[in-house]
């Protein structure tokens, strides 16, 4: 546990030491063993990303052009919107997260992937679960619970898929060859354990045998906020903690700050959920507890932010030549920003205005996308060439991906976030009509913001297409390279 900076450096950059060649061989063995399952997870997550993006655009257009695709039940707003959420959260984000977690786990435990068939089963069950779930939602079988819309006939598949993965994680951890525990492993282990608990508890208490009345809402938001806090966030932070030092070739700034960050997140984040119910029909103590816990989130967020920032210190020029670093740093900064914004939104006086408005949507995208999705993209750009031993075919497409998504999501968050505040201020002023075709009203004032949001969505979609083209292209290169006699090309530091 008491890692000196040198030992961390050795773990992260084996080639710098005398037994570098052996270490390099082990890494190569690990990467080869991970190839099939991780590529399957990344490939399917990309498919869900594209499907989810299409749903997102349809949803967004409908907000200012309500008659667009309005005549079919399957494509009505209230079904496409949860289809978007579930395909990006469970299809894309979770699956990419599983892939990254898997690879990180093998690398940090220094064990080649064992029991690969378990992971292959995870891929089958997970994708089947998400696919049946999305079709179910479009068919009108949504449970009507936010973040838990997937109908009960699809959820067991998701559960089995995840349980297999968690089991694999624990076995790999048990048989690890590296006794040092790196901070990323703390986050990964915790996420593996927390998510199945959350998911099972939520399914039993509000889908299978619902508890009474508003207690459902408490369970719902305990779950929904924790999907972000205890599943998505730990994976994202584990990746940032690994990749920033890895790309820079220097250790994390402070071991103690990273421990403080982890345990304070574990302690406070899971109490946050009830701030989604401010002003609602639940006991005041319950909501107050969550607001306090939300404010306490400042500790892990600032700690992690400082730690990452000081690791980067003096190396910001590296952002120019490393796309992986660019995605990671964008994601890391977004994490700090979105979390502090979240603290603000949880306060009663702020929530009075922003609750029930597009501000919440902007905030959710800042966390899920500007932080997590960007970190996943960066991780995939780093991992895939090492698994396939082939370079990314187009650096230009990677640049396009980064800038389209970075600019797109920044416009999205700021414009919609601001629009939401305007909407909330108008809504709390009873002199402003809720809807009026001529006079300014709550509904009509939001429309310009919603239109700009659609445009930023198109920009993000262009970024995703660039990513998809590069991904298919590298696969084609890999297949072609497999036919030719093997030439050992060094993998550049993307």
């Amino acid at each position, binding site marked *: 546990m008491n890692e000196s900076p040198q030992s961390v450096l050795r773990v992260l950059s084996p080639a710098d030491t005398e037994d570098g060649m052996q270490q390099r061989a082990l890494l190569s063995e690990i990467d080869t063993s991970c190839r099939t399952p991780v590529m399957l997870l990344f490939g399917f997550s990309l498919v869900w990303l594209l499907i989810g993006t299409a749903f997102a655009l349809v949803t967004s257009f409908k907000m200012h052009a309500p008659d667009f695709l309005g005549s079919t039940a399957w494509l009505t707003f209230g079904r496409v919107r949860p289809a978007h959420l579930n395909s990006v959260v469970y299809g894309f984000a979770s699956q990419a997260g599983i892939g990254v977690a898997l690879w990180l786990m093998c690398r940090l435990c220094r064990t080649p992937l064992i029991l690969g068939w378990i992971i292959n089963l995870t891929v089958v069950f997970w994708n089947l679960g998400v696919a049946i779930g999305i079709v179910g939602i479009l068919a009108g079988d949504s449970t009507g619970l936010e973040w838990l819309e997937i109908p009960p006939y699809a959820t067991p598949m998701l559960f089995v898929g995840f349980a297999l993965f968690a089991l694999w994680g624990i076995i790999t951890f048990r048989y690890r060859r590296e006794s040092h525990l790196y901070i990323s492993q703390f986050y990964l282990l915790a996420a593996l354990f927390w998510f199945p608990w959350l998911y099972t508890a939520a399914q039993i208490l509000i889908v299978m045998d619902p508890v009474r*009345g508003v207690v459902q809402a408490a369970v719902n938001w305990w779950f929904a906020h924790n999907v972000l806090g205890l599943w998505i966030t730990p994976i994202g932070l584990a990746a940032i903690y690994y990749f920033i030092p890895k790309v820079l070739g220097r250790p994390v700034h402070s071991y103690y700050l990273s421990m403080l960050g982890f345990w304070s997140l574990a302690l406070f984040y*899971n*109490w946050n959920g009830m701030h989604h119910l401010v002003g609602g029909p639940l006991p005041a103590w319950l909501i107050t507890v969550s607001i306090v816990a939300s404010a306490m989130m400042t500790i892990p967020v600032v700690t992690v932010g400082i730690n990452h920032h000081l690791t980067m210190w003096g190396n910001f020029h590296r952002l120019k030549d490393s796309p992986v670093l660019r995605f990671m740093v964008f994601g890391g900064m977004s994490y700090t920003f979105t979390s502090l914004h979240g603290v603000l939104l949880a306060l009663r006086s702020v929530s009075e205005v922003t609750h029930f408005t597009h501000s919440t949507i902007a905030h959710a995208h800042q966390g899920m996308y500007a932080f997590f999705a960007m970190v996943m993209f960066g991780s995939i750009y780093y991992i895939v060439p090492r698994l396939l031993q082939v370079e990314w075919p187009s650096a230009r497409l990677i640049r396009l991906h980064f800038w389209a998504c970075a600019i797109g999501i920044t416009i999205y968050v700021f414009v919609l976030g601001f629009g939401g505040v305007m909407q909330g201020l108008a*809504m709390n002023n*009873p002199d402003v009509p809720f*809807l009026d075709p001529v006079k300014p009203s709550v509904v009509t004032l939001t429309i310009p913001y919603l239109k700009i949001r659609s445009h930023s969505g198109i920009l993000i979609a262009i970024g995703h297409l660039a990513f998809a083209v590069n991904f298919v292209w590298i696969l084609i290169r890999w297949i072609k390279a497999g036919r030719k006699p093997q030439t050992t090309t060094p993998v550049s530091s993307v």
Partner: protein
Amino acid sequence: MRYGPLIFVGIFLTLASSWCGLVLMPQIQLGRQQAVKIEETGEIYPTPRSGLAQQGFEIYRANGCIYCHSQQVRPEGFGADILRNWGQRRTVARDYLYDKPVMLGTMRTGPDLTNIGLRQTSAAWHLLHLYNPRIVSKGSIMPPFPFLFEKKKIGSRLSPDALKLPPEFALEPGYEIVPRPEARALVQYLLSLKANAPLPEAK
């Protein structure tokens, strides 16, 4: 491995704490709440919904109305819910005893619907509004729900329940729009939405 079990205990206890606090405690406090007799009227409140309204509740759930409409009235002095006439009083836990799932909502792209059954009592208005919101509500961005209706060739005479469409929304001659059972059920549900019983805890 020395620290492995310790980490597990830590991550177990942290989540266990919020499970007790945010799941178990509300269940203990509110999980066995019952309907009460309202002193002023002598009626039992709340009561389970009628069969047709319950079917409408399922249509409301299936089509994701929750993503734009909340069903909760915030207390006086917190937001303008009561000043906007969205309710005469705040909503409390007892108002939701029979909802499975509870659809409080987190978004108000459209107005709150807790008391829509008191605000808009005309079934004909609701049917037109569902068929195409812009018929009765100019400038609305609510999606239309034509799939809850049926476009029929007019028989010997106009069906009694055919929608009375204004000229700019009129169909080609010889056709009419009649609500399907789903539309009727949904309207019945909307008309049933009222949380105005004078509960002691909501005063």
